[in-house]
């Protein structure tokens, strides 16, 4: 029984930043991006050609993956189920929408300020960050946890939806912000812009994935997991649980804000429906399907569900919500650890033989 004897059942790579899962995920993201770029560069007559519309669609999926990552960071690793993360996504989106709206128009006051890209970029992370900071500070110091926290996040996003629906907000009311023309002086409709936004979104996913991975493998990540499983114990060990929660909640909200900012120029509109509680719940379903508490699973879940949604809402639009609900029920009952759980299990089976 030597000191260094390792339990064979224990995956030590879990602790390292560069685990196999990290490398595979990074490779898949980079490889996928390059593949799409190459196929897009083919002549349109080639059967493998990927059109601009598809590139834009994939770019949108990337922003959803980013949002799923944000939700998984706090739900999977910290046990905070936010059913209002769409609000942070939407705030980032509105910040970008205001910037796009101010291009070529001479607006006065604070709307005019948003014409500056650096200021808009700051607003993209600060608006969700400040909301998360104030909301989280109030909730976590009062020790609001579990389902109660989830309910007030729903209330938060619903309240914001009502507010943004009002014309006096200067946010376009129920129509939202749309009819954008330029980003950083380039035409949004140009093919080069579609590709650039696709690459920017993919890179953001990659960077956020590395950031989350670094957090999760740090000691703070382990304190987070410990908080998820036994909060009182963590407190009696001397950690300020509310500070841990607050900091990760703010990081998560900022990632969601960046996702929203990348989403808006690719779909060309942001309106209060993004604040709808249903959207936030859908994000949670992506993460649950992909595999909670695995960053890879969150990315996969967002991609798979949204791809299915694109295909199925085209083929049978009425059936989509039933399918989504059914899928959620089946996965939670049969695969509690999601698709990533199945992959990890199969990987271990193969490794054993």
């Amino acid at each position, binding site marked *: *029984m030597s*000191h260094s*004897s*390792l*339990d064979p*059942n*224990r995956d*030590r790579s879990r602790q390292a930043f560069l685990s196999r899962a990290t490398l595979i995920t990074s490779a898949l993201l980079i490889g996928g991006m390059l593949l799409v770029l190459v196929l897009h560069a083919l002549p349109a007559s080639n059967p493998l050609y990927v059109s601009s519309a598809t590139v834009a669609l994939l770019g949108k999926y990337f922003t959803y993956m980013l949002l799923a990552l944000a939700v998984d960071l706090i739900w999977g690793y910290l046990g905070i189920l936010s059913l209002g993360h769409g609000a942070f996504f939407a705030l980032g989106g509105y910040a970008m929408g205001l910037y796009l709206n101010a291009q070529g128009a001479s607006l006065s006051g604070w709307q005019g300020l948003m014409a500056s890209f650096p200021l808009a970029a700051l607003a993209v992370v600060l608006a969700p960050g400040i909301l998360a900071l104030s909301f989280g500070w109030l909730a976590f110091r009062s020790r609001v946890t579990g389902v109660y926290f989830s309910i007030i996040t729903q209330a938060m996003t619903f309240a914001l939806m009502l507010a943004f629906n009002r014309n006096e907000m200067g946010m376009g009311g129920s129509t939202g912000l749309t009819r954008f023309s330029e980003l950083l002086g380039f035409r949004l409709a140009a093919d080069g812009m579609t590709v650039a936004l696709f690459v920017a979104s993919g890179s953001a996913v990659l960077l956020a994935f590395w950031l989350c991975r670094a*957090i999760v493998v*740090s*000691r*703070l990540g*382990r*304190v987070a*997991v*410990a908080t*998820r*499983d*036994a909060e*009182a*114990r*963590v*407190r*009696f*060990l*001397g*950690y*300020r*649980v509310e*500070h*841990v929660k607050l*900091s990760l909640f703010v990081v998560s909200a900022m990632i969601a804000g960046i996702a929203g900012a990348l989403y808006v120029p690719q779909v060309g509109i942001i309106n209060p429906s993004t604040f709808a509680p249903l959207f936030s719940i859908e994000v949670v379903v992506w993460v649950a399907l992909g595999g909670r508490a695995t960053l890879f699973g969150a990315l996969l879940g967002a991609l798979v569900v949204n791809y299915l949604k694109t295909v199925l809402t085209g083929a049978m639009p009425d059936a989509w919500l039933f399918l989504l609900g059914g899928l959620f029920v089946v996965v939670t009952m049969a695969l509690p650890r999601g698709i990533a759980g199945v992959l990890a299990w199969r990987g271990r089976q193969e490794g054993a033989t």
Partner: protein
Amino acid sequence: MNQSARTRVQQLRELSRPDRVFDFMLPAQSPVDVRHGPILYMEDVSVSFDGFRAINRLDLTIDDGELRCIIGPNGAGKTTMMDIITGKTRPDSGQVWFGSRHNLLTLDEPRIANLGIGRKFQKPTVFEALDVSENLELAMAGDRRVWKTLLARLDGAGQARIDEVLETIGLTAERHRLAGVLSHGQKQWLEIGMLLMQRPRLLLVDEPVAGMTEPEMQRTAELLTRLAGQQSVVVVEHDMGFVREIARKVTVLHQGSVLAEGSLDQVASDPRVVEVYLGGDEEASGC
């Protein structure tokens, strides 16, 4: 309101005391001052929940390095007492001091934990999704702030400390196993190990041998006896056999206050104790 105003006046008076020594003037090491007596001092503490007096004018003094057993029937207020010491519950009245410098009633749970009061729960509470050495690493004394925790790396001294505690609690071979797959007894020891990593001055241990087998109980008794002397240990326990094994001094709680205090034989022969607790108890006389 009245209560908080009174506390504020008290604080003000405390601040302007002529012999006041401000915390920042004191050396950072060993912040607990036990030169003037006990490590834990509770005086006239009362707390009620919905009219029920869980703790009723409780006085309790624990000396530095002491191993104290606290016994009492269900509902005697043992767990509430621990809640008060660790900052989870605020008493309605009374004083609780850690050493002669720290008024525990003004501090919250993380502050109290960082001062050096460790608590073991009744139900073993370890981080099941982490492995044994990770559990110990999180408990290790150190800077608990978010940013420092994010950047923290386990250094050689920390690793040596973990190895030492693993040896003490006898879980060296299990170090890389997930805490969730440990047996009940092993989880209890791991939790005691986590307390040791905190380097506490005072250990509060709530029913450490509940659900343990006889050999496991033996080992726990050895462990706790070894700890006393280096730190003060307060053990709340139901099992009289176990209490006889480790106790030097026993406090009997009843209806939220101290009924008797002394050696186990002294308290066991106290007629009031016999009446409320040990009276006709086969287990007590049998051991």
